[in-house]
């Protein structure tokens, strides 16, 4: 198809997890013959194993399709798939800037969820045309008319002629394609103007090196051109441009309005940051496109190799991951308990879990992770101000004048049946109720102010279990607020284990100290001596447990046939021992550090 800007449609799909976003994308690709049916794996756009397993999209990905409309003309569709989880709002906002429209997928059995709403507002802020679609109408519990009304009432979007579809069965998906042509405007821009290409994502491809995903706003880019980063002034030679089909496919040229990738002599993705504008070095644009606001990591934790010898491998792995994930931050740190590792910053708890999983799976690393922390502000008696993202760095209590912790505003959407349970949860988590509005008769939107450090542990799991999976939530940073915080330490046989220290509200310290001490008792294997476990605030012990001494570990029998078996057993024990961390005199298995994170 010859280039015709009028016949380009750039759009993304926004939806809550499980509302069928990736399935819809798959159907669209099928209908447009983008991929042959037999090549089609479920959820094509979700390319990472973890994404597939968890059924979520983490990275924005893109695909180009060609669609023949009822008017007989062929249109070029660039679909940019976006993550659906609260942690990845930032990724969504980047994808949105590359589009003119957004297909809003809402589950006909669930209605609008908190994160969907957040992403819709983001799309509206970016002046995107929203195309509402009601999915899963094949399910018996579908109630499309309620959901249409909800979209109109809650978001204020006309939705009476929203396509009602079943992405799973392929029902009415054609109507969505038609609607995209009709409702989403074609991109503006001038292919003859100086090049302005917005980098909305970047990945590291093992074969092609660092790749920038771009939306060309003006001008054109092709192989052989010398381009310049408008943020850093650095220049690169373009070696290849291409599109996503959805595999990377080289093309001659990317023109204004198009979406694709640029491969250049870029050593690392850090040299072309997401949000940067690329321009023609020979004929530069006057100004850069508006970029993205840089997101600050909200959650921090220490990541250590289970085997100290893997430190360099961990470093290499993080270096590679950050190429694909600009929102990940890390810097070296050391722990008495865990040795050399990294303090890593994440957008949220899911982001943290995903990074850990990717490190372990894609890089085959065994990790030890410390308890997650948020950033606290500390004002000392002498007036010095500190920001602390690692509890171990907190000055002694006697030097602290006061501390502040981050507070977020959380929006929780839930069927009204669970309001009581959810408010109870929020109260337990030191929440402050703001208000509650009915979205429809049986669905409410509850607003709470919550300390971030209360939601980074198990809030999401708790919310799901107390609402039988129906509640959804979204949050945004509000402000720092003074709070009575204390550092809670854990001692094993009298030695502080720095990797277990956390900062908690003083009213929660006792319960937390007891719970963690009990958990430690379960996970620390018996040693050759008794091991006291203490939870302490400063020098004050608030909980105590004891791991009893191991007196016997010999096998009753060992005759001719048992020798090989026994030797294997011993070798396994030795391996296990190697994976233990020495805290003073106590051997602690790596898993112990993780297991204390999961405490109710």
């Amino acid at each position, binding site marked *: 198809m010859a280039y015709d800007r009028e016949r380009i449609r750039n759009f993304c799909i926004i939806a809550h997890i499980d509302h069928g976003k990736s399935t819809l994308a798959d159907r669209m690709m099928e209908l447009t013959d983008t991929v042959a049916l037999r090549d089609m794996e479920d959820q094509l756009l979700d390319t990472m194993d973890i994404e597939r397993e968890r059924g979520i999209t983490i990275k924005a990905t893109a695909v180009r399709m060609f669609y023949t409309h009822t008017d007989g003309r062929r249109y070029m569709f660039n679909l940019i798939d976006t993550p659906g989880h609260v942690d990845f709002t930032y990724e969504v906002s980047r994808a949105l800037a590359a589009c003119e429209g957004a297909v809003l997928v809402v589950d006909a059995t669930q209605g609008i969820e908190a994160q969907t709403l957040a992403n819709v507002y983001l799309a509206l802020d970016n002046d995107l045309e929203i195309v509402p679609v009601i999915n899963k109408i094949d399910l018996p519990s579908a109630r499309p008319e309620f959901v249409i009304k909800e979209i109109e009432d809650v978001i204020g979007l006309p939705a009476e002629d929203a396509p009602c579809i079943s992405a799973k069965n392929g029902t009415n998906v054609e109507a969505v394609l038609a609607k995209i042509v009709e409702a989403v405007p074609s991109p503006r821009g001038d292919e003859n103007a100086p090049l302005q290409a917005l980098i909305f994502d970047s990945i590291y491809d093992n074969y092609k090196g660092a790749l920038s995903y771009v939306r060309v706003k003006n001008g054109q880019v092709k192989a052989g051109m010398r381009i310049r980063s408008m943020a850093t002034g650095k220049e690169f030679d373009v070696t290849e441009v291409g599109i996503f089909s959805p595999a990377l496919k080289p093309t001659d040229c990317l023109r204004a309005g198009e979406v694709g990738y640029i491969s250049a002599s870029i050593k690392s993705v850090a040299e072309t940051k997401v949000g940067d504008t690329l321009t023609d070095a020979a004929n530069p644009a006057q100004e850069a496109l508006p970029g993205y606001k840089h997101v600050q990591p909200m959650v921090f934790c220490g990541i250590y190799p289970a085997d100290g010898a893997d430190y360099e491998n961990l470093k290499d792995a993080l270096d590679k991951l950050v190429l694909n994930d600009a929102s990940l931050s890390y810097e070296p740190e050391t722990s008495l308990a865990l040795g050399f590792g990294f303090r890593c910053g994440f957008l949220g708890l899911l982001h943290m879990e995903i990074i850990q999983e990717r490190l372990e799976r894609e890089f085959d690393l065994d990790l030890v992770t410390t308890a997650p922390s948020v950033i606290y502000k500390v004002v000392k008696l002498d007036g010095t101000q500190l920001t602390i993202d690692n509890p171990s760095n907190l000055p002694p209590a006697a030097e602290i004048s006061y501390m502040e912790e981050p507070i977020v505003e959380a929006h929780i959407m839930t069927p009204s049946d669970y309001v009581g349970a959810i408010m109870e949860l929020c109260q337990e988590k030191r929440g402050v109720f703001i208000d509650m509005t009915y979205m429809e008769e049986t669905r409410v939107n509850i607003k709470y102010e919550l300390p971030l450090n209360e939601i980074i542990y198990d809030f999401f799991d708790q919310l799901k279990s107390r609402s039988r999976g129906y509640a959804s939530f979204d949050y945004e940073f509000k402000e720092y607020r003074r709070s009575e915080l204390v550092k809670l330490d854990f001692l094993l046989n009298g030695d502080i284990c720095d990797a277990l220290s956390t900062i908690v509200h003083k009213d929660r310290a006792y319960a937390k100290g007891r719970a963690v001490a009990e958990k430690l008792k379960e996970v620390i294997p018996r040693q*050759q001596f008794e091991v006291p476990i203490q939870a302490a605030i400063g020098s004050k012990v608030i909980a105590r447990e004891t791991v009893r001494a*191991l*007196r*016997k*570990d*010999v*096998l*009753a*029998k*060992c*005759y*001719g*046939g048992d*020798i*090989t078996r*026994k*030797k294997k*057993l*011993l*070798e396994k*024990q*030795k391996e296990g*021992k*190697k994976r233990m961390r020495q805290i003073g005199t106590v051997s602690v298995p790596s898993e112990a550090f993780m297991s204390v994170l999961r405490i109710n």
Partner: protein
Amino acid sequence: MAGLYIHIPFCVRKCAYCDFLSFPQAEAQRELYLSALGEEIRLAGRLFPAQGYETVFVGGGTPSILEPGEVRTLFQTLRQSFSILPDAEITLECNPGTLSQEKLEEYRASGVNRLSLGLQSAEEKLLQEIGRIHSFPQFLDSFRMARQAGFGNVNVDIMYGLPGQDKAQFLSTIEQVAALGPEHISAYCLILEEGTPLHERVGRGETRLPHEDAIWDMEQEGRAALAALGYARYEISNYAKKGFACRHNMNYWENGPYLGLGLGAHSAMRLGGWRRWENTRELESYFQAIKAGRLPIQHQERIEEKEEMFECLMLGLRMLKGVDRAAFQARFGRDLCAVYPEAVEALCAIGWAEVQPDAFMLTEAGLDMENSALLYFLED
């Protein structure tokens, strides 16, 4: 010193805790097996270097399930194929539920001079719980018949840590057994092995094993009781009157050579380096190999010297007398304390081991923690 082991994989019924290679038999199958075993013995006799065997141990399964004539034939074949020394210790494992005076007389006549009787407990309820086929009175009968047949060297196996067992029951079993005056007592702590019915019952919560503290008490008091009754502990689980330690098993713990024949039997021998091998555990492939005139070996490995040294410790430290330093020196050309200076020092420092001029041994505390002690000798 070399030992000969013969495996009889048949039993009347498998006990709930048993993970040995054994299964109930059909008569025809037993005959086929014994004929194949005879072939293997003849084949091995031709293939392996001639050496005098000082011990023979027929284990199982339940070897005493065999008919008297079958045992006679087995020993005839053995003697035709191997040189069994005149003063050899020849043991046969017996289940009290399978013995008769006639069988025992025949064993004696075949040259068997040591019996190992599996009693496990004097409590009827416990015997049933763990699936034994015999009662305590049957055991008493068996023991009496054994003596009558002229067996002057008898071992009795007993167990502790059985489901529902208490200390009094265990001590009472010791007392009642010791009253008979066997030359040897093996007292094993129950090991819950995966894949056994008992393991499943415990997993489902239908059966509970005694608390580890209770087991500890049984063990401590059981040891003291056995000592008081004249049974000296010479290995983790083995006790004997003076001069009656089991020579066949001592050879295992001294990491000596042994030839194992029969289904799933293991062997270790110096054949161009220290080697260990294992017969197939599948009856069908056992028959096939024998039919084809091959040894039914399924897996064999060459043990490097470093591993061989470790195995000498792993096995030798099970014995109270420990590892003989002169024997170690003779075998490897180096003193044990020079090979493992750090481990030896560390273990002595925490009171788990002792170095004496002629031996390196674990202390009582060290014996209980043998696994942990051995980790000191494994390389990082």
